[in-house]
C-alpha cells in the first residue's frame, strides 16, 4: 500500500455561475503509484485542469470542491487546513505549469527563487540550498549552472525557463509532480527534449507524475496509464497500450481518428471528425454526456446513470452502454472501410 502516492475518489468541482451551477468535474476517481505516469487527456473545457487544481487545493475561491477521499502518501488532504496544504505544496507535491514565464517571478533571480523553495520547507543554510540548486540545474541539462543562479527569468529562453521550473519543483524531492500542459507553449523540438527530461527524472527519483495535456501524441509516448476525460467525467481509462491500441469508448475512438499521422493516414481521404460541440456543463444533462455527438447514440443513452465498466482486459475501464465487443467491432470495421 505504501506505493500508492495519490488516491482520489469521487472528486467533484462545482462553480456557481449566472445561470445556475457549472458541474466542471463530476465524480472523478484515480490513483497514482510510485514511479508511475498518469496522463489525463481531454479537450479544452473537459475539466482536466480543474481536477489538478482541486488536488492541490488551488481552486478559485468561488469553486466548491467535494470528494470521498483525497490522500497523498496515506495522508488525508481533505481535512488539511490552509497551513498544512502550503507545507505539502512544493514539498511532497510539486507543480509545473504551462507558461514558465508567468510561474516564475520576474523580479527575483533564478537562484533566489530556487533556494527559497528549499528554505521554506527544510531547515537548511543558504549554502546548502545553493548547492542543491546547482546540482539540480545541472541535472536538468542547464550548462554553466552556477552562473545561471544570478540570472533573471527574462534572460532565459522558453525551453530553459521550463527546465528551471522543473529543477525548482525537484528542490524538496517531491513524491508527486503534477504537470499541467508543461510543453504546450514550447516548440516541437524543445517539447521532445522537455518530455524526455521529465521521463528520465521521474525514473531516477521514482516520483509519481500526473501529466495533463490535450496532445494525444505526448500521452502515447510518456504515459503508463491514461484517463480520457470528456465533459467533466473520465470516459475511459487503462494502460497506454489498451487506450491507444484498443480504444473502447466511442469518444476515444473518434479522437484518435481525428489526428493525422504522417505515413499512416490516407491523405486523399478526409480526416475523421467528431460532429457537434462539447455540451454546456451548467444545470442537468444526459446520462451519457457524449450521446449527442456519438454515432451509436440511442434513447437509452440519455436516461439514468452510466457507470464505468470493465472492458475485456484488466484495468481497462470505460463509461458506455455498448459492450466492449460491439465497440471494438465497430472500430475495426471503420479501419477496414
Amino acid at each position: 500500500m505504501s506505493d500508492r502516492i495519490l488516491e482520489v475518489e469521487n472528486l467533484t468541482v462545482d462553480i456557481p455561475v449566472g445561470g445556475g451551477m457549472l458541474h466542471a468535474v463530476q465524480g472523478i476517481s484515480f490513483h497514482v503509484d510510485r514511479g508511475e505516469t498518469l496522463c489525463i487527456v481531454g479537450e479544452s473545457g473537459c475539466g482536466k485542469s480543474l481536477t489538478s487544481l482541486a488536488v492541490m487545493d488551488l481552486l478559485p475561491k468561488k469553486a466548491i470542491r467535494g470528494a470521498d477521499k483525497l490522500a497523498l502518501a496515506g495522508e488525508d488532504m481533505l481535512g488539511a487546513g490552509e497551513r498544512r496544504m502550503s507545507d505539502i505544496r512544493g514539498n511532497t507535491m510539486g507543480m509545473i505549469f504551462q507558461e514558465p514565464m508567468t510561474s516564475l517571478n520576474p523580479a527575483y533571480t533564478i537562484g533566489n527563487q530556487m533556494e527559497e523553495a528549499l528554505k521554506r520547507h527544510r531547515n537548511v543554510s543558504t549554502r546548502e540550498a545553493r548547492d542543491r540548486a546547482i546540482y539540480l540545474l545541472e541535472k536538468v541539462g542547464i550548462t554553466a549552472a552556477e552562473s545561471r543562479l544570478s540570472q533573471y527569468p527574462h534572460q532565459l529562453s522558453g525551453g530553459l525557463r521550463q527546465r528551471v521550473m522543473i529543477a525548482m519543483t525537484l528542490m524538496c524531492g517531491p513524491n508527486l509532480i503534477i504537470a499541467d500542459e508543461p510543453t504546450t507553449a514550447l516548440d516541437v523540438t524543445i517539447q521532445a527534449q522537455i518530455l524526455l527530461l521529465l521521463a528520465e527524472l521521474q525514473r531516477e527519483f521514482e516520483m509519481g507524475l500526473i501529466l495533463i495535456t490535450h496532445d494525444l501524441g505526448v500521452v502515447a509516448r510518456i504515459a503508463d496509464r491514461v484517463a480520457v476525460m470528456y465533459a467533466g467525467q473520465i470516459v475511459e481509462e487503462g494502460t497506454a497500450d489498451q487506450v491507444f491500441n484498443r480504444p473502447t469508448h466511442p469518444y476515444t475512438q473518434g479522437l484518435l481518428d481525428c489526428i493525422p499521422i504522417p505515413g499512416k493516414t490516407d491523405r486523399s481521404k478526409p480526416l475523421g471528425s467528431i460532429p457537434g460541440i462539447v455540451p454546456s456543463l451548467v444545470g442537468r444533462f444526459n446520462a451519457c454526456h457524449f450521446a449527442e455527438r456519438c454515432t451509436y447514440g440511442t434513447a437509452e443513452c440519455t436516461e439514468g446513470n452510466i457507470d464505468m465498466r470493465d472492458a475485456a482486459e484488466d484495468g481497462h475501464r470505460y463509461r458506455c452502454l455498448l459492450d466492449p465487443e460491439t465497440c471494438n467491432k465497430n472500430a475495426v470495421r471503420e479501419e477496414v472501410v
Partner: protein
Amino acid sequence: MSDTVISARDVTRTFMISAGAFRGKKPLHAVNGVSLEVQRGEVLALVGESGCGKTTLAKMLLGLLPTTEGTIEFGGTPVADIERLKLASLVQPIFQDPYSSLNPRKSIGSIITLPLKVQKDPDPSTWRKRAEEMMELVGLAPRLFENFPNQLSGGQRQRVAIARALINRPEVVICDEPTSALDVSVQSQILNLLNDLRTELNLTYIVISHNLAVVEHIATRVAVMYLGRIVEQKDTERLFNEPEHPYTKALLQSVLTPDPSLDVPDTHLGAAYPNPVDPPSGCTFHPRCVNVMEHCSLAAPRTINSGDGFVECHLYDEDSGRGRAVS
C-alpha cells in the same frame, strides 16, 4: 505547364533592434534571402520553430510589410506595384486565433460582408445572399448571420474567418497556424474544410504551421525554415520519406505520433535556438547539428538542387565548401 502565382526572389527583411538606451541599433534579419515559387492549385507549407521568420515572410507575401531587399511578384507583377485593394482581392489571410481576429462588436454577417464593402462591390442587394451562400459552403448555419462572435465556438469562429477570407474569391489564401488554437476534434473538421474548399474553389494555399502532422496531411510541398532561410524544400512525400537536412530530420523526429510502443524521441538538438541578432557563423545551424563538420562554422552552405527541391547543407555539397572556407 507551370503556372506560377506568387514568386519571391532573394527576399530579405531586416528589423533594426535597439540593444539598449545608449547603444546603437543592431540589424535582425528576420527573413534572409528567401526565394520561392508557388504554383496555382498547390499547397505550400512553411514550417520551422518560432522566430524562424515564417510569419514575417507571410506578411510580406500579403503585402502588409515591405521587403528590405528582393522582389515578390504576383502573377508576374511586383507586389509593390499592385494597388492595395486589388492585392487584397487576390490574397487573403486566415489567422491563428479566431478569438482575436474577429471584431467582437460586429455581427457575423457584417464581418463576412465587410470585404465586399471595402472592395466597393457594385451590387449591395446581393451581399446578404452571397454571404449566406458562403456561410453554407464553410459549414455555418445561415441563421447565425445576426449573431455575434462571442456566441460561437472556436471552430465556428474559424469558419467565419474562412468565409470572410473567401467572400471575394481570392486566388491565394495564406493560413497562419490555422488550427493551432483549436481542439483536435475541431482541428480535423477545419482541415477537411480547407481541403474541400481548395478543390471546389480552385484555391492556392500557403500554410504556416509548426505541426508537421498537419502539414503532412494538407500540403503538397514543404519549405523548412531556419533562422530566416529556407534550408530544405521538397514535395511533401519526399520530404517526409527522405529528409536530407539534419534540421528537417530532427523536426520529423519530434513529431509525436500517438503510438504507445514508442518512447519520447531524443532529437540531439542540444543547444537552444540561437539569438537571431547575433547568428552563428557559417551555417547558422552548426551549433545544434549532429553531423557538424569542421568547415560548417566557416562557410555558409550553398543551395544544392536535389530532384524537384533543394537543400542547403554542406553534407550534400560535392566539394563540400571546404575549399571555399579555406580560401
